């Protein structure tokens, strides 16, 4: 009884799908043949077959020139000019004034004595964030990868469990945790009171919020790095462990002498990737804390966003900070490309 019902349902679903594809196939065919005809018959003869490669790269290059190359050049222009106007003709050269303003401090170790105290604070916050987040991320990802690399049941399930937050949007991740951290109705505070502690209003404590910002970034992204490390682990030939075992190495020695040295290229890639993303960190924390309380979780990118897009829209200053950030990122990215190249050569 149940069976026939089931097959009937799937049968009608198949009918629906057939109808759907029949209706859709006509416009799709029209597009496939239409585009083919227009470009092959009308455009290619005009351009000439030999110049077709240029036609193929044209859309990409147009977007690249317009939305990457031009902005990069403009960023230089803005960083060295002043004024609140965005029209280039109304901007005037100020030399290095924007950069001088950023580092205009009575005492560089105390951000309160600086003219752009939020900027100095943001540098400090970003440094602190990276200094904790990057090692935490790598260590946790490494442990997950090692655990998943064991002979275990339900490996696919456990892998998905650690991986799925990677696919959630930063806004959703931040909202999930913002809700977890509420003083009323939040799960973390419920657990604290269950063990007899006083509920904590995390949102008014800068140090707590920095902790949670780091925790949430690790929670959201660790699956991604664990996956890369797992691929690296699985690339180590099992015969090496076999040989180490025969030579009498225990599992600790195997880890330090075989796993780690052979995983070093992958670990380096992960390190650079986490650094690059740490420097650019914005959305998770922006939604979770808004940079607060005060400016205690304001990172570099949020500082750029605030300076540029919130009144009084100091474009020059924001561009100057962008330029500094770009230098850091460029160094890291070149390093990453170099590593990638070395790795592919090794393979």
């Amino acid at each position, binding site marked *: 009884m149940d069976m026939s019902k089931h097959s009937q349902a799937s049968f009608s679903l198949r009918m629906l799908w057939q109808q759907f594809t029949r209706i859709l196939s006509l416009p799709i065919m029209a597009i496939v043949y239409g585009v083919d005809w227009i470009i092959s018959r009308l455009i290619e003869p005009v351009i000439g077959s030999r110049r077709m490669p240029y036609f193929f790269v044209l*859309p990409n290059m147009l977007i690249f020139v317009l939305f990457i190359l031009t902005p990069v050049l403009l960023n230089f222009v803005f960083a060295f000019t002043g004024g609140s106007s965005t029209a280039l003709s109304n901007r005037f050269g100020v030399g290095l004034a924007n950069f001088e303003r950023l580092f205009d401090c009575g005492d560089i170790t105390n951000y309160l004595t600086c003219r752009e105290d939020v900027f100095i604070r943001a540098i400090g916050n970003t440094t602190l964030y990276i200094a904790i987040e990057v090692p935490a991320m790598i260590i946790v990802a490494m442990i997950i990868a090692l655990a998943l690399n064991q002979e275990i049941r339900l490996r696919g399930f456990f892998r998905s469990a650690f991986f799925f937050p990677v696919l959630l949007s930063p806004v959703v991740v931040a909202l999930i945790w913002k809700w977890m951290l509420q003083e009323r109705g939040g799960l973390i505070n419920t657990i604290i009171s269950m063990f007899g502690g006083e509920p904590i209003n995390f949102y008014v404590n800068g140090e707590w919020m920095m902790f949670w910002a780091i925790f949430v970034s690790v929670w959201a992204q660790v699956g991604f790095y664990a996956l890369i490390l797992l691929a690296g682990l699985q690339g180590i030939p099992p015969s090496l462990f076999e040989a180490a075992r025969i030579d009498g190495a225990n599992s600790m020695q195997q880890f330090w002498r075989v796993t780690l040295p052979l995983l070093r290229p992958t670990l380096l890639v992960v390190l650079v990737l986490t650094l690059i993303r740490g420097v650019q960190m914005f959305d998770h924390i922006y939604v979770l804390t808004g940079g607060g309380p005060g400016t205690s979780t304001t990172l570099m990118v949020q500082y750029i966003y605030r300076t540029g897009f919130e009144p009084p829209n100091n474009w020059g200053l924001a561009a100057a900070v962008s330029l500094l950030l770009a230098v850091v990122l460029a160094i890291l990215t070149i390093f990453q490309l170099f590593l990638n190249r070395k790795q592919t050569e090794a393979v």
Partner: protein
Amino acid sequence: MARTAERDTASYKWWGSHILGFLFRKQGGKRMNLTDWLTYAFLIVGTVIMFFPVLWMIMSSFKPISTLLQTPPTFLPYYPETIVIPGRDRPLPLLDVKLEDGSIKRMAQLSRVGRAARVLDIENPDAPPINVPLENVTPVQTVRFDLTNYTTAIERFPFFTYLRNSVVITISATILTLLINSMAAYALSKFRFRGRSVIFLLILSALMVPLAVIMIPVFLVIGWVGLGGNLLGVIIPPAATPTGVFLLRQYMLTIPDELIEAARIDGASEWRIYWRIVLPLAAPALAVLAIFSFMWRWNDFLWPLIVLGGKTELSTLQIGLNSFQGELNVQWDLILAMTVLSIIPVVIVFAFLQKYITSGIASTGIKG
């Protein structure tokens, strides 16, 4: 080997130990040692930490605001039961009242007076209400997965506007990404032409300038070309992704040149070779890029935030969610419901295409 071992365990009389044995046994039927126990302990604790926040959000999204903010919170969504009593203009909450003689009676609450509740006898509503101290009172609640929060959220917020914008952006940006990146990848993998290495280097260098670094000038350029406050401004600029070009180029390098040569000898135009031969052959790589592009666009936050400038009628789901959570009095019941709705497409994609995503990341290292 593993199969016979499984059949052996199936003969265990106590099925509970069978399940435990299945879970906690190494492949090949070896017994567990300390490392295995630690591994499982870590994996299970980790799974709870990863899953529970999401589960908590989903459960919370079904709770009415009264249950949502109560301390201590409950895991399941409890709804206070109410009763309609003739002569009273609104439904009254039901209470289990412990009377002075120790018996428990179900009564309706009229109001709260200090630390006491004014309650009414249900069977005899005309009798004068009595006051009982709050400690003798427990509200009657039932677990219900009620969709009120969802319907209210959809009514109160311009949910369908956000949804439409997100869908339009995601689908058109993905199609555009596939088209222009595969064109560029084809040219870079199968042609020798002047300037090829320069173009390749330019695309490579685009990796170095993420949006976060150039958001100020990009915002201005988008305004100058007339795409500011326009969905096209979100769709077009990120479509030329270097990662996409690399992924497709690597794949197209494996397509044999002879195939293309043969088509050329048969008189096919260059476009037709790309459109009718190379594209279908590159379908697996295109599929991987399509999944990633879908994820990138659906979850994107910074780009629409900058380009769309906070206009409600142009906002995506992500921007909408963010703007409502930033209000002074956050309406958590509605926000949570909308958040759950916004992750449904991602969950569907993950459920069906997980294998491609994970193998795509593991083999290319592109961002998920």
